[in-house]
């Protein structure tokens, strides 16, 4: 029932978004415009849903309300790997789409591993330290991007701008969208399947084990699947911030902290949010959606940070 409600909520937002174009609001006239808006809305929804899904999972597993793919550096790591991969000459081979996904996943996981390694202290991850390390890693990823851009003597400023500002990749092949859709669907099913156990991951290790949950295995599985969802989205877009932060928190206000309800609700909110952001971007002359989510998420993040400090920095 809840899943149907989520799907219906997203569908309303998606249909509404499809009615928004660069020339104004109205049902698209002509097959070409309809097809463009449909694909753009679908891609934006997939990316938003993937990022929100990853965000809600990171927050549960890390017991950190500020965790999300962008702030942890996973998004920029995945995007950087895709950019580096696509600048290499052999990326145009037949398997380019799949290898782009693989590059994104490798980049995302590698960045996450580095962030964890640097942020952990005796096995504990403090929320603010994690964020600080995420910010530093994001900055390094940005510098690496510029280095690759310079060394490759690339003149594709559009691509560069997309990476830096978080835009959706245009002219996607159907196979690329299908790959992202399959990876997202698989991630969603797996995370929904373990959503009950994710509730337990909010408890201490001893309590989780005494309730029958193999907590280390669960945490690793959830982190890998969430990173897979992030990476698959980043393979077709630049690093889009704050979707994975805002949606879980809004979802919590709607349905509480039960991951069995929160995961589908936050995911639907992510899909709807980015579909609406994409429509707004069309109205604003194809402004990258990352700019819009940044305007929305930045103040929201500061509010959460302030609240987190007020409560003593605990999760």
């Amino acid at each position, binding site marked *: 029932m809840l899943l149907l409600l989520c799907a219906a909520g997203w569908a309303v937002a998606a249909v509404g978004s499809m009615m928004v174009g660069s020339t104004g609001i109205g049902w698209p006239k002509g097959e070409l415009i309809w097809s463009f808006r449909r694909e753009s809305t679908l891609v934006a929804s997939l990316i938003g849903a993937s990022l929100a899904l990853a965000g809600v999972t990171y927050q549960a597993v890390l017991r950190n309300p500020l965790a999300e793919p962008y702030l942890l550096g996973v998004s920029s790591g995945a995007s950087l790997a895709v950019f580096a991969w696509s600048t290499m000459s052999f990326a145009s081979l037949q398997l380019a789409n799949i290898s782009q996904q693989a590059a994104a996943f490798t980049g995302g996981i590698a960045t996450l591993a580095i962030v964890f390694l640097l942020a952990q202290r005796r096995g504990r991850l403090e929320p603010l330290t994690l964020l600080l390390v995420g910010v530093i890693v994001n900055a390094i990823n940005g510098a690496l991007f510029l280095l690759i851009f310079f060394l490759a003597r690339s003149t594709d400023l559009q691509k560069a701008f997309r990476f830096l500002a978080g835009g959706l990749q245009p002219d996607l092949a159907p196979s690329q969208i299908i790959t992202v859709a399959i990876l997202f669907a698989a991630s969603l099913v797996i995370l929904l399947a373990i959503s009950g156990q994710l*509730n*337990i991951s909010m408890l201490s290790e001893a309590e989780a084990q*005494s309730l029958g949950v193999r907590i280390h295995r669960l945490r690793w599985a959830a982190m890998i699947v969430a990173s897979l969802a992030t990476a698959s989205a980043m393979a077709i877009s630049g690093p889009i911030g704050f979707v994975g932060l805002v949606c879980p928190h809004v979802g919590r206000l709607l349905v509480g902290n039960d991951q069995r309800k929160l995961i589908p609700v936050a995911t639907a909110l992510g899909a709807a949010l980015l579909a609406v952001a994409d429509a707004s971007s069309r109205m604003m002359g194809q402004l990258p959606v990352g700019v819009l989510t940044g305007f929305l998420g930045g103040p929201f993040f500061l509010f959460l940070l302030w609240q987190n400090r007020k409560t003593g920095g605990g999760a």
Partner: protein
Amino acid sequence: MTSPTTLPTPVLTATNLSFAYSEHLVLHEVSMELLPGQVVALIGPNGSGKSTLIKLLCGLIHGSGDITLRDQPLRRWRRRLLARTVAYLPQSPTYEPADRVAEVLRLGRACYWTAFGLETDHDLATVARIANLLELNDLLDRRMDQLSGGQRQRVFIGRCLVQEPAILFLDEPNTYLDLKHQVDLLKLLQTLAHEHHLAVLMASHDINLAGAFADELMLLSEGRLTARGRADQVLQPALISQAYGVEMIQIPSPDHSLLFPKLC
């Protein structure tokens, strides 16, 4: 029904349990058993190995020696099945302040949930039954941060009972509770053991309260089990003085004598 002449079969038996953190031996060849319907209080000074023993018996950590749970070695129990037999309440249980009491109780059924966290009618009925037993019905919609320390502790015990365990391990459950709530909690544990045939093992720092409510006391000192028996057998000034390193005085009372540290 057990006849008066035969003892009930132990639900858990531990033989020669030892455990060391790095090279520091915390527990040394402890042997014990737990019977259904019995409250056993584990007493001893800080660092005597109480928490370590409880964690070993729950299967949360592993040392040397043998633990048999319902005639099967503890190591061979699958984690989910173990959680349906053994419940554990740590000294400081974790909770999300915004979580509702009903949500916390339902977590206890996690070891019964199927994929996607689907709950059966029996799961919901068990939560309702335990909420009723612990008089938590009026609190079910309350946030955890709106409860008193005593109420919160009852919720955590409820979460353990929702697991429908045969054994309940509690690590210093009286911490943070005032006297009235301490007494209420111990009465509750006594009722659960005697009327619901639960085996209860709790670590306690209050030797007199433990003596008043537990059927048996186990005294740990420097990782060794130095005494085990009824309160009047274990709460002996010489034994307790030696274990705690402080001279004790004995004050007679109707049920059993009370022990207090000699202040001057």
